């Protein structure tokens, strides 16, 4: 059902984990859909210096998460913003039709992380979707002073 590239990324996912001092965190997905993707970005000189992901979901969700981190690492913010969910799916050699919507959200999560870095999204977007034992706060937690520091340099 999955392409070899999907299975390869699923088995050896790149850039798993979280960035403690991330400049932006993007969280997407819902418990109704069964997939949840969290992308962390570290920005330096307008480039994505580091990117990591944490994903709860099916094989496609994990593979797309892994693939997006490979696709945008080292790219400028503008270049990364050009990457779409469809491009991720294509890079993976396609996804089964049923997986194109629910599980192909990694690029959206990455865009949300950039939104947060650029100050387009308020802090509350990082609130956990799940109530208990989730540790979704992961990275920088909810310390207001850090929140201030995350504003983009002008």
């Amino acid at each position, binding site marked *: 059902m999955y392409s070899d590239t999907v299975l390869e990324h699923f088995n050896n996912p790149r850039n798993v984990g979280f960035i403690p001092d991330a400049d932006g965190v993007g969280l997407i997905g819902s*418990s109704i859909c069964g997939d949840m993707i969290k992308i962390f970005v570290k920005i330096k000189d307008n480039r994505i210096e580091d990117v990591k992901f*944490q994903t709860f979901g099916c094989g496609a969700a994990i593979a797309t998460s892994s693939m997006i981190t490979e696709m945008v690492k080292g790219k400028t913010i503008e270049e990364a913003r050009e990457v779409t969910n469809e491009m991720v799916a294509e890079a993976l050699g396609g996804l089964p039709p049923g997986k194109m919507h629910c599980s192909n959200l990694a690029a959206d999560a990455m865009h949300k992380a950039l939104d947060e870095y650029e100050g387009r999204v308020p802090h509350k977007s990082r609130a956990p979707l799940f109530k208990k034992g989730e540790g979704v706060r992961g990275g920088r937690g909810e310390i207001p002073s850090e929140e201030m520091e995350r504003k983009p340099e002008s």
Partner: protein
Amino acid sequence: MDHAATTPVHPIVLEAMLPYFSKNFGNPSGIYPVALEARKALDDARSTVAEVLGCGPGEVVFTSGGTESDNAALRGAAFALKGKGNHIVTSSIEHKAVLNTCHSLEEFGFKVTHLPVDRYGLVSIYDLEKAINSKTILVSIMVANNEIGTIEPVAGFVKLVKEKAGGKDIVFHTDAVQCPGALDLDVNKLGVDMLSLSAHKFQGPKGVGILYIRDGTPFATQQTGGAQEGNRRAGTENVAGIVGTATALRMVAEGRESNSQHCQRLRDRLIKGILSQIKDTRLNGHRTLRLPNNVNISFQYIEGESILLNLDLLGIAASSGSACASEAEEPSHVLIALGLPPEVAYGSLRFSLGSANSEKDIDYVLSVLPSIVERLRAMSPLASTNE
């Protein structure tokens, strides 16, 4: 380890079927010798099934599968009794073949009560008693659940319903699709009026089902046409499939006790192994009132398909939710009915064991599963290890 989804056709079953595709190709309704061959095979198959179910041959109807049996039973009883009432009682953990048929009957003016289940998946007899009213014409509660394996005390439910009905007609149907090979299918011990079975669940062919209809049960034929199956299901009989079904049912009934014991031993080993070796896991369903071959476990913080995919790469077949629902991308309605939050329901796996499985298989699963779960949890934003 996905025997609840389907099973391979047994070689003996296949052999029994083959002549009816070629040499004995006749139409059982014909008058030629070759047709009489087919007619005899059909009659013999019906007698065999009747023997296993403890009923008369005239009470056995062959269908195209468990789904058709459920459809025919519910629609057949509901429309036959339309003048007497419009209320149907079922449980919230039925197979979709029952739930969606009930849903469809609502469009024809029937009212449906879905009984809740407790956290083990058991329907309460008090809830059933409360649900029955003067308009109730039909009750459908499964003998055993396909996802979590919980065995409902159907015989007691039937007794209650018949008492409450007094002299009126309240038809009791049960979906027993998961039961051959595990439980006694004697319809008189169960007391039910109608019972559904599916051949491919017990090493028979796909595309054949059985519907038992007790003599005197109100039934409006749903598939109309010729007079086959005692005017209850029109269409030329699937002779080869029916012969295979009867052969398989007899074999599975004869091997029931040894198969149950074998599966149950493996089941308990697997359950104990998973729960003791992997933390934040939960057994879904009842510990003892449980199909001997069913193991259903929730692994918190991770999603079922990703576990399945890993198992599949290591040559282990299992299922997340029921096999038919896995394309639907919705959490299992059965697990939600138990009260599990959606993200936990998503992280659930079903192993269903068969006679071909051995202790070695169980130990193999137990040797690979902990590291699979650990690897996926390390990736999950929900896992507490991230804190």
